[in-house]
């Protein structure tokens, strides 16, 4: 559809006076900004010599949390795999070992694999998790020599939990209040 004449507004270029035509005020304006930056506090980080401190809600490498007994907290409900828009989570569920079943743990992930290369770090998995077992940490500098190295299995994801907990960089909880019922130990066992 052609543009109607009535829809067009014509704008005139402002006329510059003699003072403006000298360009000195504009020059001073620009130098002010430059000089201001020269004397202000430095914000540039000297990465990689100096590592930045990431905010605790940063969405970096995943971790699989452990419960109080050091077992994987995940109950293999596939909610994260279902929510994942990149289909990067692969879980194989199995009945939990007999001693876990005493604590009401019926199902656990036999394998839990995340393809960190396919992941888009959207955080949907931790939002979907009913037991807060999967979380995204502040680790951002993920590198590897091969694609296989970037496919993280259960052990690797649990080790991310151990490192981040030791370093005191536990991510902030995405979910307020107590954990889901499935992650709680039944009252009798407590």
């Amino acid at each position: 559809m052609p543009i109607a004449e009535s829809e067009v507004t014509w704008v005139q270029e402002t006329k510059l006076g003699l003072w403006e035509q000298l360009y000195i005020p504009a020059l001073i304006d620009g130098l002010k900004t430059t000089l201001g930056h020269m004397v202000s506090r430095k914000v540039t980080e000297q990465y990689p010599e100096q590592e930045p401190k990431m905010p605790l809600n940063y969405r970096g490498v995943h971790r699989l949390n452990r419960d109080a007994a050091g077992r994987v907290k995940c109950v293999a409900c596939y909610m994260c795999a279902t929510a994942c828009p990149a289909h990067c989570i692969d879980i194989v569920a199995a009945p939990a070992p007999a001693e876990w079943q005493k604590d009401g743990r019926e199902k656990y992930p036999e394998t839990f694999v995340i393809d960190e290369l396919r992941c888009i770090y959207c955080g949907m998995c931790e939002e979907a998790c009913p037991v807060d077992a999967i979380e995204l940490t502040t680790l951002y500098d993920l590198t590897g020599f091969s694609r296989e190295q970037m496919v993280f299995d259960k052990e690797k994801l649990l080790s991310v939990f151990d490192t981040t907990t030791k370093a005191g960089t536990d991510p902030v909880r995405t979910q307020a209040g107590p954990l889901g019922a499935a992650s709680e130990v039944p009252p009798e066992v407590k």
Partner: protein
Amino acid sequence: MPTVYVNDKPVEIGTKRLNCVQVAELAGVFVPHYCWHEALSVVASCRMCLVEVGDLKDGKVTMQSKVLPGCQTPVKDGTVIVTGEYDKRDKSLPVLPYDPGYTKIAPLGDRAKKSQADTLEGLLINHPLDCPVCDKAGECKLQDFSYKYGRSESRMVDVKNTPPNKPQLSSKITLFTDRCIMCTRCVRFTREISGTAELYVSGRGHHEEIDVFPGRPLENKLAGNVVDLCPVGALGSKDFLYKQRVWYLKTVDGVCNRCSTGCSTYVDANKDIVYRIRGRHNPQAQGHFICDEGRYGYHHANSGERFVRPMLKTEGKFKPAVWSSLLPQLKQEFGDAVKTNARGTVAVLSPFLTVEEAFLLGAYFKSLSNDVRLVMGPVPVIGENDTYPKNTRGESVEPVQFTIRGEKAPNRIGVEAVLNQLQGEVIAFTSIAKESLFAMWFSGGYPDKSHLDALVPTDWKTPALLVAQDLLPTIITASAQYILPATTGFEKDGTFVNHANYMQTFGRAARPPQEARTELQLAFDLLGRKGLVQPDAIRKELAKAVPFFGALAPETRIALETAQV
């Protein structure tokens, strides 16, 4: 004509004896229920189907003052039913002359709606919130109805009852006792359909539990049905336990291929792997239920032993071959064989083939020469027909509710009908097994290889040219020159004819593994037709060519019903 009114909608019931739930269904209104099942007796224990019931007499509706369980309330001429969904009724219909005294206390439908919400709250009192680990989640009636009719929060503050699980209930079935809502469908099933009565209810009130009698685990050939019947995740199949979440599964209407009853099934598959078989209600085939042989009889499809590519014997060893060069080679071989000895060339059509496949394969061999003999493949018959219910001594009792047939093949009658049309007679495999033949095409597809091994005489003479098509290694494939991979009943689209000449068309749930091709495609290629085969088109062709299948049309496939058994 007797008329019943459901939410003001008149429904003519004729001479049928129905309850409120069934009449509501006729009127297009769903009344939620757990314990009621069409095939089982009525106990009205779950109280989920509560409806308001009244009577239209002398131009006035008199409503009963309390809500009644719909499953236990028979309807008669003039019965008026008001369900919890009265506010969603068809408002174009005239409103019945309800008693103003009744509607003044509470609007119509409110009593039923509130009763249903209260019932659900009661059922959820002791129900654990372990949906994340429960296999039923996603197809659970407790989830669905809570979402639709229940409240969003629990007012329960006390500690829930957590009775221990009972994995020792059966070798195939486990009981998550705490999830049970005591609908007793499973108990009634074992008493009324299987007749074996292994299950009972122990305890009373809050402490009711499903259990088996000591030393008598739930082991009968129909036991798997209790898992389908369970509206919640209490009874779980050990075979399917934690294998897949149900929302990943694609459901296809299937037909069981383990015996000649030809039960209608749902085949649940994900990414070309079949994970579960469930019964599909079909009164013309078997009713509501299926046997365990069919339910767990899908593992051959996922077997690692399966042939997944064509193979050619060279220097006494089987080497993988490619279809593109193999097909012209096969055509050449059979063309030459027919020229040298047409009478000594046979094509064995197995009772596991669909009628479409048998028709195309038969047509191909008859197109080579009319002297080529088409032979009915060995039909495994294992024991007698096994009927249910049984009494406590394991003897069958009349009236029969379910039959597991001894003929362990789904389509003998269908293939025979094709053979009768193509050559006017059915030649049994036993009559040619001891002849010294020149060339043989053996189409198998036997899910249980021991069945075939038992039927082939030990002294059978291997023909000079033997092309064996089967799922698993058998006596026949061992002596073959060419091995072609067969496909299971889940990997093809076709029609089976059951013991009572009932034709059922089913769909494909999974693609054939790796380089396997369906028998239909193979026959299509052998006939020199171009492109991918269209099963519907072949079905049409078959219906035209064979009068027995005249009624068969692509439309005969039963529409996918999402209703549970």
